[in-house]
Protein backbone atom coordinates (compact mmCIF):
# COMPACT_ATOMS: atom_id res chain seq x y z
CA UNK A 1 0.00 0.00 0.00
CA UNK A 2 2.83 2.36 0.80
CA UNK A 3 4.37 1.58 -2.54
CA UNK A 4 1.31 2.68 -4.46
CA UNK A 5 0.91 5.79 -2.37
CA UNK A 6 4.47 6.78 -3.14
CA UNK A 7 4.06 5.99 -6.83
CA UNK A 8 0.88 8.03 -6.92
CA UNK A 9 2.69 11.09 -5.59
CA UNK A 10 5.54 10.59 -8.04
CA UNK A 11 3.07 10.31 -10.88
CA UNK A 12 1.28 13.45 -9.83
CA UNK A 13 4.56 15.37 -9.80
CA UNK A 14 5.44 13.98 -13.22
CA UNK A 15 2.06 14.94 -14.60
CA UNK A 16 2.38 18.46 -13.29
CA UNK A 17 5.87 18.77 -14.73
CA UNK A 18 4.71 17.61 -18.15
CA UNK A 19 1.68 19.86 -18.10
CA UNK A 20 3.91 22.78 -17.21
CA UNK A 21 6.27 21.95 -20.04
CA UNK A 22 3.42 21.77 -22.53
CA UNK A 23 1.78 25.00 -21.46
CA UNK A 24 4.27 27.46 -23.00
CA UNK A 25 3.97 25.80 -26.40
CA UNK A 26 0.23 26.25 -26.31
CA UNK A 27 0.29 29.81 -25.03
CA UNK A 28 3.30 30.92 -27.01
CA UNK A 29 1.49 32.04 -30.14
CA UNK A 30 1.41 35.78 -30.80
CA UNK A 31 -2.19 36.85 -30.52
CA UNK A 32 -1.73 40.46 -29.48
CA UNK A 33 -1.67 43.53 -31.64
CA UNK A 34 1.35 45.46 -32.79
CA UNK A 35 4.62 44.24 -34.10
CA UNK A 36 5.87 40.83 -33.08
CA UNK A 37 9.36 40.06 -34.22
CA UNK A 38 11.85 37.53 -32.98
CA UNK A 39 15.10 36.18 -34.30
CA UNK A 40 14.42 33.02 -36.23
CA UNK A 41 16.59 29.96 -36.28
CA UNK A 42 14.05 27.48 -37.59
CA UNK A 43 12.80 27.45 -41.17
CA UNK A 44 9.10 26.79 -41.61
CA UNK A 45 8.17 23.43 -43.04
CA UNK A 46 6.88 24.94 -46.25
CA UNK A 47 8.25 28.25 -47.43
CA UNK A 48 7.98 30.61 -50.36
CA UNK A 49 10.56 33.31 -51.02
CA UNK A 50 10.46 36.14 -53.53
CA UNK A 51 13.79 37.91 -53.89
CA UNK A 52 15.85 40.27 -55.99
CA UNK A 53 13.22 42.76 -57.16
CA UNK A 54 14.53 46.03 -58.58
CA UNK A 55 12.79 48.98 -56.89
CA UNK A 56 12.05 51.04 -59.98
CA UNK A 57 11.87 50.59 -63.74
CA UNK A 58 12.50 53.56 -66.00
CA UNK A 59 11.16 53.85 -69.54
CA UNK A 60 12.31 56.95 -71.44
CA UNK A 61 11.13 57.93 -74.90
CA UNK A 62 9.40 60.40 -77.15
CA UNK A 63 5.70 60.37 -77.88
CA UNK A 64 4.97 58.01 -80.74
CA UNK A 65 7.94 55.74 -79.99
CA UNK A 66 8.40 52.60 -77.93
CA UNK A 67 10.54 52.91 -74.85
CA UNK A 68 12.23 49.72 -73.70
CA UNK A 69 13.98 48.55 -70.56
CA UNK A 70 15.79 45.28 -71.26
CA UNK A 71 16.45 43.25 -68.16
CA UNK A 72 14.30 45.62 -66.13
CA UNK A 73 13.66 42.98 -63.52
CA UNK A 74 15.71 39.94 -62.56
CA UNK A 75 14.35 38.08 -59.59
CA UNK A 76 13.79 34.64 -58.10
CA UNK A 77 11.05 32.61 -56.52
CA UNK A 78 12.10 29.72 -54.29
CA UNK A 79 9.86 27.21 -52.59
CA UNK A 80 9.67 23.69 -51.26
CA UNK A 81 5.93 23.65 -51.83
CA UNK A 82 4.40 21.91 -54.83
CA UNK A 83 3.20 25.01 -56.64
CA UNK A 84 2.94 28.77 -56.83
CA UNK A 85 1.73 31.56 -59.04
CA UNK A 86 3.28 34.92 -59.81
CA UNK A 87 1.03 37.84 -60.63
CA UNK A 88 1.96 41.45 -61.42
CA UNK A 89 -0.79 43.83 -60.38
CA UNK A 90 -0.93 47.51 -61.37
CA UNK A 91 -2.28 49.96 -58.83
CA UNK A 92 -4.20 51.93 -61.47
CA UNK A 93 -5.52 51.54 -64.98
CA UNK A 94 -2.61 53.50 -66.40
CA UNK A 95 0.56 55.46 -65.87
CA UNK A 96 -0.19 58.98 -64.65
CA UNK A 97 1.62 62.28 -64.58
CA UNK A 98 1.19 65.08 -62.08
CA UNK A 99 -1.40 66.77 -64.28
CA UNK A 100 -3.57 63.66 -64.33
CA UNK A 101 -2.75 62.66 -67.91
CA UNK A 102 -2.86 58.89 -68.40
CA UNK A 103 -1.05 56.40 -70.58
CA UNK A 104 -3.17 53.25 -70.37
CA UNK A 105 -1.60 50.08 -69.07
CA UNK A 106 -2.54 48.37 -72.32
CA UNK A 107 0.40 50.24 -73.89
CA UNK A 108 2.73 48.50 -71.46
CA UNK A 109 4.09 45.02 -72.10
CA UNK A 110 6.40 42.59 -70.38
CA UNK A 111 8.50 39.81 -71.85
CA UNK A 112 9.81 37.05 -69.60
CA UNK A 113 13.10 36.24 -71.30
CA UNK A 114 13.99 33.49 -68.86
CA UNK A 115 11.95 31.34 -66.55
CA UNK A 116 8.82 31.10 -68.69
CA UNK A 117 8.55 28.70 -71.59
CA UNK A 118 8.44 30.45 -74.96
CA UNK A 119 9.48 33.82 -73.55
CA UNK A 120 6.04 35.30 -74.18
CA UNK A 121 5.32 39.00 -74.37
CA UNK A 122 2.20 39.87 -72.45
CA UNK A 123 0.32 43.10 -71.96
CA UNK A 124 -1.75 44.56 -69.18
CA UNK A 125 -5.49 45.02 -69.35
CA UNK A 126 -6.47 48.01 -67.25
CA UNK A 127 -5.80 47.45 -63.57
CA UNK A 128 -6.17 43.68 -63.81
CA UNK A 129 -3.40 41.52 -62.46
CA UNK A 130 -1.19 39.81 -65.01
CA UNK A 131 -0.29 36.25 -64.08
CA UNK A 132 3.04 35.59 -65.71
CA UNK A 133 3.89 32.24 -64.19
CA UNK A 134 2.03 29.34 -62.65
CA UNK A 135 3.88 26.29 -61.39
CA UNK A 136 2.21 23.08 -60.30
CA UNK A 137 3.50 19.63 -59.56
CA UNK A 138 6.83 20.78 -58.23
CA UNK A 139 8.87 18.15 -56.37
CA UNK A 140 8.24 19.71 -52.96
CA UNK A 141 11.88 19.37 -52.03
CA UNK A 142 13.18 22.74 -53.08
CA UNK A 143 12.79 24.58 -56.36
CA UNK A 144 13.90 27.97 -57.66
CA UNK A 145 12.66 29.89 -60.69
CA UNK A 146 14.72 32.84 -61.90
CA UNK A 147 12.93 35.30 -64.15
CA UNK A 148 14.41 38.03 -66.29
CA UNK A 149 12.03 40.60 -67.72
CA UNK A 150 12.06 43.17 -70.47
CA UNK A 151 9.58 46.00 -70.13
CA UNK A 152 8.31 48.10 -73.04
CA UNK A 153 5.97 51.07 -73.31
CA UNK A 154 4.38 52.15 -76.58
CA UNK A 155 4.08 55.85 -75.86
CA UNK A 156 1.01 57.28 -77.58
CA UNK A 157 1.71 59.99 -80.11
CA UNK A 158 -0.77 62.16 -78.25
CA UNK A 159 0.92 61.79 -74.87
CA UNK A 160 1.92 65.09 -73.28
CA UNK A 161 5.62 65.26 -72.47
CA UNK A 162 5.92 64.61 -68.75
CA UNK A 163 6.95 62.02 -66.17
CA UNK A 164 4.44 59.23 -65.83
CA UNK A 165 4.52 56.60 -63.12
CA UNK A 166 2.57 53.87 -61.40
CA UNK A 167 2.96 51.27 -58.66
CA UNK A 168 3.22 47.57 -59.57
CA UNK A 169 3.13 44.69 -57.12
CA UNK A 170 4.71 41.30 -57.80
CA UNK A 171 2.75 38.73 -55.79
CA UNK A 172 3.87 35.12 -55.40
CA UNK A 173 1.35 32.81 -53.74
CA UNK A 174 2.10 29.27 -52.64
CA UNK A 175 -0.29 26.45 -53.34
Amino acid at each position, binding site marked *: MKIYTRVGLTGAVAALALAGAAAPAVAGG*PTGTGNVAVNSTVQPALYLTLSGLTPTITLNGQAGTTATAPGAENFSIATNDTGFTLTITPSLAGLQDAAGDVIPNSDLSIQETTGVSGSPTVGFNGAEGLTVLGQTGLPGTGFTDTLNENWALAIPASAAPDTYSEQFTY*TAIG*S
Partner: protein
Amino acid sequence: MSGSPAAAWALTVGPSHLLMEPGHTARLSVTDSGSKPLTVTGSVIRVGETASQKCVPAAGTVTGVTVSPAHLTLAPGVTGWVTVTVAKGAPAQDAAAVFTASAGQGAGTARVSGAVGSQVVVGHVPGCHIPAPVAAPVHGGAGIGGDAGLAGIAAVGLVVVVAAGTWLRKHLRWQA
Protein backbone atom coordinates in the same frame (compact mmCIF):
# COMPACT_ATOMS: atom_id res chain seq x y z
CA MET B 1 17.00 29.69 -48.77
CA SER B 2 20.25 28.81 -50.48
CA GLY B 3 23.75 29.61 -49.41
CA SER B 4 24.14 32.41 -51.94
CA PRO B 5 24.44 36.01 -50.73
CA ALA B 6 21.15 37.56 -49.73
CA ALA B 7 19.47 39.80 -52.28
CA ALA B 8 18.84 43.37 -51.21
CA TRP B 9 15.10 42.70 -51.23
CA ALA B 10 13.77 39.29 -50.23
CA LEU B 11 10.69 38.19 -48.37
CA THR B 12 9.73 34.71 -47.19
CA VAL B 13 6.45 33.33 -45.89
CA GLY B 14 5.86 29.97 -44.28
CA PRO B 15 3.98 27.74 -44.38
CA SER B 16 3.19 28.62 -47.97
CA HIS B 17 -0.30 27.21 -47.76
CA LEU B 18 -2.78 26.37 -45.02
CA LEU B 19 -5.86 24.20 -44.79
CA MET B 20 -8.17 25.63 -42.16
CA GLU B 21 -11.65 25.28 -40.74
CA PRO B 22 -13.97 27.94 -39.31
CA GLY B 23 -13.01 28.75 -35.73
CA HIS B 24 -9.35 27.91 -36.27
CA THR B 25 -6.23 30.01 -36.02
CA ALA B 26 -2.80 29.39 -37.51
CA ARG B 27 0.55 31.04 -37.30
CA LEU B 28 2.60 32.24 -40.25
CA SER B 29 6.19 33.36 -40.24
CA VAL B 30 7.20 36.33 -42.37
CA THR B 31 10.94 36.72 -42.77
CA ASP B 32 13.05 39.51 -44.16
CA SER B 33 15.50 37.29 -46.01
CA GLY B 34 17.22 40.19 -47.72
CA SER B 35 19.84 42.68 -46.64
CA LYS B 36 17.76 45.77 -45.94
CA PRO B 37 14.92 46.50 -43.50
CA LEU B 38 11.37 46.03 -44.71
CA THR B 39 8.05 47.50 -43.71
CA VAL B 40 5.53 44.74 -44.36
CA THR B 41 1.78 45.03 -44.67
CA GLY B 42 -0.43 41.99 -44.26
CA SER B 43 -3.78 41.54 -45.97
CA VAL B 44 -6.18 38.84 -47.05
CA ILE B 45 -7.20 38.51 -50.67
CA ARG B 46 -9.45 36.23 -52.65
CA VAL B 47 -7.84 33.47 -54.71
CA GLY B 48 -9.50 31.95 -57.71
CA GLU B 49 -9.07 30.57 -61.18
CA THR B 50 -8.83 32.16 -64.58
CA ALA B 51 -9.20 30.44 -67.92
CA SER B 52 -5.53 29.54 -67.90
CA GLN B 53 -4.31 29.73 -64.32
CA LYS B 54 -5.28 28.41 -60.94
CA CYS B 55 -4.75 29.97 -57.54
CA VAL B 56 -4.28 33.55 -58.66
CA PRO B 57 -5.51 36.76 -57.02
CA ALA B 58 -9.16 37.21 -57.87
CA ALA B 59 -11.87 39.80 -57.50
CA GLY B 60 -14.27 39.43 -54.63
CA THR B 61 -14.25 39.73 -50.91
CA VAL B 62 -13.01 37.36 -48.26
CA THR B 63 -15.35 36.74 -45.37
CA GLY B 64 -14.20 36.02 -41.84
CA VAL B 65 -10.46 35.60 -42.47
CA THR B 66 -8.06 38.07 -40.86
CA VAL B 67 -4.35 38.48 -40.22
CA SER B 68 -2.87 40.09 -37.13
CA PRO B 69 -0.79 42.14 -36.77
CA ALA B 70 -1.36 43.85 -40.12
CA HIS B 71 1.98 45.66 -40.07
CA LEU B 72 5.47 44.41 -39.36
CA THR B 73 8.81 46.16 -39.39
CA LEU B 74 11.54 43.62 -40.04
CA ALA B 75 15.29 43.94 -39.96
CA PRO B 76 17.36 41.69 -42.24
CA GLY B 77 17.22 38.10 -41.05
CA VAL B 78 14.39 38.71 -38.63
CA THR B 79 11.13 36.78 -38.60
CA GLY B 80 7.79 38.19 -37.56
CA TRP B 81 4.89 35.99 -36.60
CA VAL B 82 1.39 36.61 -37.85
CA THR B 83 -1.80 34.94 -36.71
CA VAL B 84 -4.37 33.96 -39.31
CA THR B 85 -7.86 33.65 -37.87
CA VAL B 86 -10.86 32.08 -39.54
CA ALA B 87 -14.01 33.17 -37.77
CA LYS B 88 -16.60 30.68 -36.67
CA GLY B 89 -19.23 30.50 -39.35
CA ALA B 90 -16.90 31.69 -42.10
CA PRO B 91 -17.92 30.22 -45.46
CA ALA B 92 -15.82 27.78 -47.46
CA GLN B 93 -13.51 29.85 -49.63
CA ASP B 94 -10.10 30.11 -51.19
CA ALA B 95 -8.09 33.03 -49.91
CA ALA B 96 -4.48 34.03 -49.35
CA ALA B 97 -2.71 35.85 -46.57
CA VAL B 98 -0.43 38.21 -48.45
CA PHE B 99 2.51 40.20 -47.12
CA THR B 100 3.68 43.16 -49.16
CA ALA B 101 6.75 45.37 -48.95
CA SER B 102 8.10 48.09 -51.20
CA ALA B 103 11.18 47.07 -53.12
CA GLY B 104 12.66 50.49 -52.46
CA GLN B 105 12.45 54.19 -53.12
CA GLY B 106 13.32 56.05 -56.28
CA ALA B 107 11.98 57.80 -59.33
CA GLY B 108 10.89 55.69 -62.24
CA THR B 109 8.08 54.82 -64.56
CA ALA B 110 7.19 51.76 -62.53
CA ARG B 111 7.64 51.67 -58.78
CA VAL B 112 7.82 48.06 -57.66
CA SER B 113 6.59 46.26 -54.57
CA GLY B 114 6.86 42.57 -53.85
CA ALA B 115 4.52 40.27 -51.97
CA VAL B 116 4.52 36.69 -50.80
CA GLY B 117 1.31 34.90 -49.98
CA SER B 118 0.23 31.80 -48.17
CA GLN B 119 -2.84 30.27 -49.69
CA VAL B 120 -5.55 29.83 -47.04
CA VAL B 121 -8.11 27.21 -47.95
CA VAL B 122 -11.15 27.36 -45.71
CA GLY B 123 -13.45 24.44 -45.32
CA HIS B 124 -13.03 22.50 -48.54
CA VAL B 125 -10.54 21.14 -51.03
CA PRO B 126 -10.17 23.80 -53.67
CA GLY B 127 -9.67 23.77 -57.38
CA CYS B 128 -6.14 24.94 -56.73
CA HIS B 129 -3.37 22.42 -56.67
CA ILE B 130 -3.12 20.92 -53.22
CA PRO B 131 -2.47 17.19 -53.34
CA ALA B 132 -3.06 16.34 -49.72
CA PRO B 133 -3.48 17.93 -46.32
CA VAL B 134 -0.22 19.16 -44.90
CA ALA B 135 1.08 19.46 -41.41
CA ALA B 136 0.31 23.14 -41.03
CA PRO B 137 0.61 24.59 -37.53
CA VAL B 138 -3.11 24.89 -37.14
CA HIS B 139 -4.57 25.27 -33.70
CA GLY B 140 -8.30 24.91 -33.48
CA GLY B 141 -10.56 26.08 -30.73
CA ALA B 142 -9.88 22.80 -28.97
CA GLY B 143 -6.13 23.07 -29.49
CA ILE B 144 -5.31 23.74 -25.88
CA GLY B 145 -7.38 20.80 -24.78
CA GLY B 146 -5.74 18.66 -27.41
CA ASP B 147 -2.26 19.54 -26.27
CA ALA B 148 -3.21 19.07 -22.64
CA GLY B 149 -4.58 15.66 -23.56
CA LEU B 150 -1.26 14.66 -25.08
CA ALA B 151 0.55 15.84 -21.97
CA GLY B 152 -1.84 13.82 -19.85
CA ILE B 153 -1.24 10.68 -21.89
CA ALA B 154 2.50 11.18 -21.56
CA ALA B 155 2.14 11.72 -17.81
CA VAL B 156 0.11 8.55 -17.38
CA GLY B 157 2.72 6.64 -19.37
CA LEU B 158 5.47 7.96 -17.11
CA VAL B 159 3.47 7.04 -14.02
CA VAL B 160 3.11 3.48 -15.28
CA VAL B 161 6.86 3.19 -15.93
CA VAL B 162 7.76 4.61 -12.50
CA ALA B 163 5.26 2.37 -10.77
CA ALA B 164 6.53 -0.70 -12.56
CA GLY B 165 10.14 0.11 -11.73
CA THR B 166 9.38 0.78 -8.10
CA TRP B 167 7.33 -2.38 -7.79
CA LEU B 168 10.07 -4.47 -9.40
CA ARG B 169 12.79 -3.06 -7.13
CA LYS B 170 10.69 -3.74 -4.08
CA HIS B 171 9.71 -7.16 -5.30
CA LEU B 172 13.30 -8.19 -6.12
CA ARG B 173 14.49 -6.92 -2.74
CA TRP B 174 11.89 -9.05 -1.03
CA GLN B 175 13.02 -12.09 -2.97
CA ALA B 176 16.65 -11.46 -2.07
